[in-house]
């Protein structure tokens, strides 16, 4: 018996030893990650020089974490109040008087959409209290109907909660590849039968505030054919009102003194019924306003803030009516087989060309007015009759109302090919003080050749608070680069093909409350008549607010330095002629077909084969591990006034610095750029922390400011020990990007960036994976909440303002997802096709601002393919467009390579194409690909000079980026990085030893007892 016990105990201890041994070796590769969670470190910065030297170059403007958190709350409310868009306000229903009796209608008042469900903008309070509808409206002095709150918080109502994963979640996100798009969405509303007569009577003398909610999430999309998952409820489309929502509205209309609807959704919903319903008094779009943003929304309802937001998307009568919806969703190559799910199987063809969002609706409208281009053809018509703008759009892009009235006057436009300005005088003609937005649009000459939108945003300016009767004149910068057209066929003086073109002809600049009013102003000036114009909402027509500028000669050179075609293979018709029918102004009846299943050609299979670069012996090699005596800090100069400058990238010392890095350090740096960026001791680069995302640093397993600090950092002025009440707070609290963009206030957005930078200083983070700058291609991408708008210029300018603010505090931003990440469904490895003109004028223009001015220091590439080549390994967008054309000097990193373990997202192709680093916490997942881990290819890498040059280039760009960051805080010329063994690692070593000894002991005793038995 005894020997059996010993043998069994030996089995247990040996098992535990095996686990402990694997854990010891594995945790050694993840030490940095564990250290951040335990507040420990595997290295120590030791000051060998004068310890009294000030080593904190980026300083906080706050004296305590409490002050920072309060500033964030205040800014979030300010952004939400300025980002709230008033769409309807009949009989001045808003604002509500102080002390008004209010009934909050809608079960989703309890579970509003404040951010994303999951992913890089997932929102959740971690120890702090968020602003709820009840707290926000209650604190603004409204008397809330408690009976309704009791109903919505009852167990009976909870059964209707949007709860696909957790309360308040209605979509079904999935990171895995799927053969079936999402089929269900639940709105979370309760049936009308739950509102008893007694309950409804309590609402009779109150104002109804009805909340309509739709979710946002990474890894999910809406689909037009979705059905409502709540039994008894139904909708025609998930972005239309559901039956339960309509029933609730009917009850609210019958049992209230007035009805105000709040649209709590970042995806453009169908609002035509609400707009036309005379019993709906007011509509406010509030988007997903973050953890504290409802305070700002309540301020608008209460009249503490006069709304000044403008729509960032077109609100169509039918959310599927744009041509982009014809090719959104799941499309399979004919070579795909449903029994072999792979990341190469799907594609999307963006057949709408440049006609995205309002560029479609407004351009077709002009052609309808002018009777050209077959615009009134029934193709694409929501009604099935002749296409008519009035039947298609509820609220146009850029539209928004106020509690007062403003008169805007286009004073002057001073423009040439090189740029210019427009001045606009805004006068408050009403009786309430408020801000307004001067939106400048431009129409470029359409000659029937290059596709042109009839109107596009050229710039904007937000006024300050203007008192009744007062005026303010604002100046809007005109940059023709933002409205030049891309001509794939132009041949420039240097013989290269492809150019940014300003065609000779008439350019109309116009202001207006949104794109539609501006276009009407253009048409009034252009045609001299208002007869055929369609006026939506309260817009006016004023030809005096349009300005004609005539360009005598076509210019293809000014904005085309280093430019040449780089995305021709993205045009599926150039690979397989006749595959796609693109939307064209020449004939609006075209462009309404879904692309038939595509059979990849041999040429396409090169990209789909995920093996674009093969390591090969070439060249003389490069220098690694040189002793040049430089550190990263040598590249930084701190001036006497505290300003910081970094040596230009063409300074030869950068190459010398990179040559100090050893090949092993380089491999580690490139292959393991997840969670944090690896330290490079040879250049005195400490480990650098990086985290999502667009609404603030994500809580990433453990919340809080204290997470990345350890005791050895205690000398830092922004050190958070854990004793502070806010130390565990989630930092991902900010309003979502559509709300931010809707402010049309770049000063406010820059301030938001500054506070992200402050969060970084207090949380010991240096890189934030934001802003998201992809385009809203359709209303159905459930990740639109992480991107600003359907308009590339608005996105461009918002992103620049944010990044400028962040970088002023030493925060490295990481604009994402470069490029064409327009849907979440099967985004991994998704082949994306579009014309080069469309790519450059829409999606790439979003990125161009932050990358051409280097206001973002790093860029994350997308999961999808550009054509058939992985975006992170596509030389066209990485080298030609980003480096050669835009002069981008920052680093690239892939999206979550760690999670994919996919062939297409491999380090070999990525580095060779200039894709920089791999977002992976460990190289372990690469082991599961045919490429294996980089270290195993060390010899092949060491013999491939070209490849090593690309490695060094990628590292140089990253070191240059990090030299602009707060990572230099705490460093001096006499600082040394010293390795230490953290306690948890020591504990594992001890556990290994004890378990090994126990196992040996049990084995010995087991064998010994056998011997005794034998004797």
């Amino acid at each position, binding site marked *: 018996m005894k*020997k*059996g*016990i010993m*043998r*069994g105990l*030996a*089995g*247990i201890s*040996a*098992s*535990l*030893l*095996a*686990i402990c*041994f*694997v*854990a010891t070796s*594995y945790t050694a590769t*993840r030490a940095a990650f564990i250290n951040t969670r335990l507040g420990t470190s595997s290295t120590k910065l030791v000051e060998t020089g004068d310890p009294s030297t000030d080593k904190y170059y980026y300083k906080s403007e706050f004296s305590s974490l409490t002050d920072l958190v309060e500033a964030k709350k205040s800014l979030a409310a300010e952004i939400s109040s300025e980002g709230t868009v008033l769409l309807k306000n009949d009989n001045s229903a808003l604002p509500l008087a102080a002390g008004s009796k209010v009934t909050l209608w809608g079960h989703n008042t309890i579970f509003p959409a404040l951010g994303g*469900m*999951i*992913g*890089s903008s*997932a929102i*959740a309070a971690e120890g702090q209290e968020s602003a709820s509808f009840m707290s926000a409206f209650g604190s603004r002095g409204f008397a809330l109907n408690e009976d309704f709150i009791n109903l919505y918080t009852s167990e009976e109502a909870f059964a209707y909660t949007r709860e696909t*994963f957790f309360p308040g979640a209605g979509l079904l*996100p*999935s*990171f*895995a590849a799927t053969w079936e798009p999402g089929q269900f969405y639940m709105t979370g509303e309760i049936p009308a039968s739950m509102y008893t007569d007694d309950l409804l009577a309590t609402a009779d003398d109150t104002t109804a505030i009805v909340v309509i909610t739709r979710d946002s999430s*990474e*890894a999910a999309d809406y689909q037009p054919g979705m059905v409502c998952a709540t039994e008894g409820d139904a909708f025609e489309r998930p972005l239309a009102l559901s039956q339960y929502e309509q029933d609730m509205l009917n009850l609210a209309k019958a049992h209230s003194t007035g009805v105000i609807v709040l649209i709590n959704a970042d995806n453009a919903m169908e609002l035509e019924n609400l707009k036309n319903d005379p019993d709906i008094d007011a509509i406010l779009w509030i988007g997903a306003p973050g953890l504290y943003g409802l305070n700002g929304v309540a301020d608008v309802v209460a009249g503490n803030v006069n709304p000044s937001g403008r729509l960032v998307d077109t609100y169509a009568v039918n959310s599927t009516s744009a041509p982009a919806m014809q090719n959104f969703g799941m499309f399979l190559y004919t070579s795909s087989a449903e029994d072999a799910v792979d990341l190469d199987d799907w594609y999307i063809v963006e057949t709408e060309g440049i006609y995205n969002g309002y560029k479609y609706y407004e351009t077709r409208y002009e052609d309808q007015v002018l009777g050209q281009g077959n615009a009134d053809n029934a193709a694409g018509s929501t009604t099935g009759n002749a296409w008519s703008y009035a039947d298609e759009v509820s609220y146009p892009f850029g539209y928004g109302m106020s509690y007062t009235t403003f008169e805007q006057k286009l004073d002057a436009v001073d423009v040439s090919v090189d740029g210019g300005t427009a001045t606009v005088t805004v006068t408050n003609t009403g009786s309430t003080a408020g801000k307004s937005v001067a939106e400048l649009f431009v129409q470029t000459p359409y000659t029937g050749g290059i596709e042109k939108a009839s109107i596009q945003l050229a710039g904007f300016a937000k006024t300050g608070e203007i008192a009744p009767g007062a005026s303010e004149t604002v100046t809007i910068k005109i940059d023709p680069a933002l409205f030049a057209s891309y001509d794939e066929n132009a041949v420039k003086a240097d013989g290269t093909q492809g150019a940014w073109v300003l065609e000779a002809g008439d350019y109309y600049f116009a202001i207006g409350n949104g794109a539609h009013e501006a276009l009407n102003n253009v048409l009034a000036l252009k045609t001299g008549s208002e007869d055929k114009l369609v006026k939506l909402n309260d817009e006016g027509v004023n030809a005096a607010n349009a300005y004609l500028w005539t360009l005598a000669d076509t210019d293809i050179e000014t904005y085309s330095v280093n430019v040449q075609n780089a995305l021709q293979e993205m045009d599926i018709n150039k690979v397989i002629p006749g595959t796609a029918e693109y939307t064209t102004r020449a004939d609006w009846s075209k462009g309404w077909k879904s692309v038939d299943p595509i059979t990849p050609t041999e040429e396409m299979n090169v990209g789909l084969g995920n093996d674009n670069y093969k390591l090969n012996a070439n060249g003389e090699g490069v220098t690694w591990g040189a002793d040049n005596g430089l550190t990263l800090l040598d590249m930084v100069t701190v001036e006497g006034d505290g300003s910081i400058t970094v040596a230009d990238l063409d300074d030869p010392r950068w190459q010398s610095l990179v040559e100090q890095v050893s090949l092993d350090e380089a491999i580690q740096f490139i292959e393991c750029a*997840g969670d944090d960026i690896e330290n490079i001791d040879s250049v005195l680069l400490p480990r650098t922390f990086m985290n999502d995302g667009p609404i603030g640093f*994500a*809580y*990433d*397993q453990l919340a809080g400011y204290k997470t990345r600090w350890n005791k050895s950092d205690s000398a830092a002025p922004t050190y958070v020990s854990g004793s502070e009440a806010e130390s565990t707070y989630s930092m991902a609290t900010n309003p979502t990007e559509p709300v931010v963009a809707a402010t049309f206030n770049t000063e406010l957005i820059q301030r938001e960036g500054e506070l992200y930078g402050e969060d970084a200083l207090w949380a010991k983070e240096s890189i934030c994976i934001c802003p998201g700058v992809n385009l809203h291609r359709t209303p159905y991408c459930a990740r639109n909440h992480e991107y600003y708008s359907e308009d590339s210029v608005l996105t461009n300018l918002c992103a620049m303002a944010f990044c400028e603010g962040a970088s002023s505090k030493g925060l490295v931003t990481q604009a994402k997802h470069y490029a064409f990440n327009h849907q979440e469904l099967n985004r991994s490895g998704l082949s994306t096709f579009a014309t080069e003109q469309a790519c450059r004028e829409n999606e790439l223009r979003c990125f161009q601002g932050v990358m051409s001015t280097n206001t973002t220091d790093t860029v994350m590439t997308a999961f999808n393919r550009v054509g058939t080549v992985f975006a992170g390994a596509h030389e066209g967008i990485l080298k030609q467009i980003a480096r050669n054309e835009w002069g981008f000097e920052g680093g690239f990193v892939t999206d979550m390579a*760690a*999670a994919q*373990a996919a062939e297409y997202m491999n380090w070999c192709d990525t580095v060779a194409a200039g894709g920089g680093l791999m977002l*992976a*916490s*460990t190289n*372990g*997942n690469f*082991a*599961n690909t045919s490429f294996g881990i980089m270290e195993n290819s060390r010899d092949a890498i060491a013999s491939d000079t070209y490849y090593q040059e690309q490695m060094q280039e990628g590292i140089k760009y990253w070191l240059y980026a990090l030299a602009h960051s707060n990572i230099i805080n705490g460093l001096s010329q006499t600082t040394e990085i010293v390795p230490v063994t953290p306690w948890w690692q020591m504990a594992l070593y001890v556990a290994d030893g004890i378990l090994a000894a126990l196992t040996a002991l049990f*084995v010995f005793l*087991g064998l010994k007892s*056998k011997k005794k*038995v034998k004797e």
Partner: protein
Amino acid sequence: MKRTIGFYIEFAAAVVGLVSAGLYGSSMIITKNTYIFIIAAAAVAIISSFAATKTPKVFNWGAPLAACLMAAGIAYSITVMSDPIGYFISGLYTINDLKTWITFMIVAGVSWLLYMIAGFTGMVREA
């Protein structure tokens, strides 16, 4: 030599272990190490359970050895899933993304438990 119940437990553990290896293929991220250790555990168990009838003093130790190998296989599967587990905790992933791996862990855990029980009982009664 008389077989004990441990003989059957160990045999069952090997079968369950091999089933878990089959399930492992559908996990989100896999590592060859897990396959190697699970199959090695099953091989040790099967060989030792038959060999123990001749040399029980040596081959009764097959069960503890198999338990040790099985534990290593499970541990390696956790290492490659650490990122997805982290993403699940932080909200990037949902439980659906992990369910195939969790199923594997449950089945592999049963196998490991059986190996350890067999370690106590032995497979063949020693003289």
